[in-house]
């Protein structure tokens, strides 16, 4: 699945998007965050406060207990500050 990052999540991880293949036991957005954070120092820094991170699956906001199976694109970003 494709993962996208925005704002300081993107800056901390050092890339705007990537294609990942998480293990089958990673079922929710929250579990995916933990798995991503465990990969390297940059990812650990980006996800150091998991509760602050917002997520969207296929362009729809989701909570961290949302199931990721079937997702084409998952995005992680800070709270929105537009307008």
């Amino acid at each position: 699945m494709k993962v996208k990052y925005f704002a300081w999540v993107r800056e901390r991880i050092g890339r705007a998007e990537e294609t990942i293949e998480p293990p089958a036991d990673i079922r929710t957005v929250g579990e995916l965050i933990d798995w991503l954070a465990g990969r390297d120092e940059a990812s650990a820094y980006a996800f150091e406060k998991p509760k602050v991170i917002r997520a969207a699956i296929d362009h729809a906001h989701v909570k961290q207990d949302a199931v990721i199976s079937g997702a084409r694109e998952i995005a992680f970003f800070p709270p929105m500050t537009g307008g």
Partner: protein
Amino acid sequence: MTAIATIRIQDADFDIAQEIAAIGKGRTDIGAVVSFSGICRGSENGEPIAALTLEHYPGMAEAEIRRHAEEAMSRWPLSGLTVIHRVGRITPGENIVLVVTASQHRQAAFQAAEFLMDYLKSSAPFWKREESARGSSWIEARDHDDAAAARWTKS
């Protein structure tokens, strides 16, 4: 006559007068037009800023704004609705965002514009970074924007 929502995300500035004129063009059923323009201020919390940079989530931002525009049109009797959000680097005094609502009656136009602005401030996938003498930093979300957005939630 059905309302049409115009939604644009763009680098370029917009012309408020042109957008207001466009919403009323050829119609005589509009009694009220409300415009909201959000402008880049020259300072944040007393500290001068040089510019803002607006980032967005392409694809999701348009879809989400459209969904909220449609919600606004279902909640209030609108004749027209325009939302324009700029992205990229914006300097103090420049426009950031525009919402224009048109209706037969003023309350609908005011409420729909406020609803959309509260949404854009709290939940649309845009992020602001500010440049100042101290460098560049991401603006933090404000609780009172979430509170403003929450007042529109149907209970």
